[in-house]
């Protein structure tokens, strides 16, 4: 933006007279008042455009049930589709999503879950076979009927779009999962690996 500092009366005197000083102050104040807001907002807008954190998304996937495997993968694939650099850090039960064939075996338990689309009393939910039944119902009657992508499909979409998967080393050990049991293209890392990336991401989610 082209702006011009207002001209100041030329004076050769060593000390400015109070009148002139006052005039300079008034003019400078008026100038700053008029232009500063615009200058600052231009600078901020330019800086925000350059901010790399605007295009990074860091997600932690810590749950291993069918219902809770969806949010991290849906958000990750959507963000990647929007051109963001996305990393999902899989930890604890979330590692089950990354196990070879694991995505197909995720389940949802009806017990102590009052939010199921079809409410199942706890005393029924505790019976053997109820978890597979609820899982089947969720897959076929709810996700399936609405043509929601499967977890396997979402994992594939994420990979196609360049989402990075990191498996937590410590919880792999705790859960007794060997790196070779995981699907391909998974990096192994620790908390610091995630924090290092998340530090530069405006969007960070713990799921």
């Amino acid at each position, binding site marked *: 933006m082209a702006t011009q500092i207002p001209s100041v009366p030329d004076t050769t005197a060593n000390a400015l007279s109070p009148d002139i000083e006052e005039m300079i102050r008034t003019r400078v104040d008026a100038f700053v008042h008029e232009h500063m807001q615009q200058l600052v907002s231009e600078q901020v807008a330019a800086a925000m455009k350059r901010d790399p954190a605007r295009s990074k998304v860091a997600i932690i996937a810590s749950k291993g049930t069918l219902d809770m495997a969806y949010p991290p993968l849906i958000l990750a694939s959507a963000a990647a*589709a929007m051109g963001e650099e996305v990393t999902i850090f899989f930890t604890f039960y979330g590692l089950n999503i990354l196990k070879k064939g694991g995505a197909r075996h995720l389940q949802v338990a009806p017990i102590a879950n009052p939010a199921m689309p079809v409410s199942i009393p706890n005393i029924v939910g505790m019976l053997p076979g109820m978890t597979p039944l609820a899982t089947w119902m969720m897959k076929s009657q709810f996700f399936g009927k609405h043509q929601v992508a499967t977890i396997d499909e979402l994992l594939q979409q994420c990979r196609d779009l360049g989402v990075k998967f990191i498996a937590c080393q410590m919880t792999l050990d705790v859960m007794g999962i060997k790196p070779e049991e995981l699907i391909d293209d998974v990096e192994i890392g620790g908390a610091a690996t995630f924090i290092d990336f998340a530090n530069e991401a405006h969007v960070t989610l713990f799921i």
Partner: protein
Amino acid sequence: MATSQIGKVDTVVDAKGQVCPMPIVMLAKAFKDLAVGQILMLLATDAGAKKDVAAWAEKTGNLLLETSEEGGVLAFYLQKV
């Protein structure tokens, strides 16, 4: 098919029946193969796509030229910038 003021469409992506996040994912994948200035028509039935496609265009800096709806089918016309 929805009618439009847009003359020539270079690619059509049919995401009818697909739900979140698939319309956006299919759009993004197809856009990669588009040259600058080319126009893509995305068809979708997921009502959420209305806001999602606008957000996608805003975020990626591409142009959402026109949106129309006919018989529950949304048609988005997007131009690669």
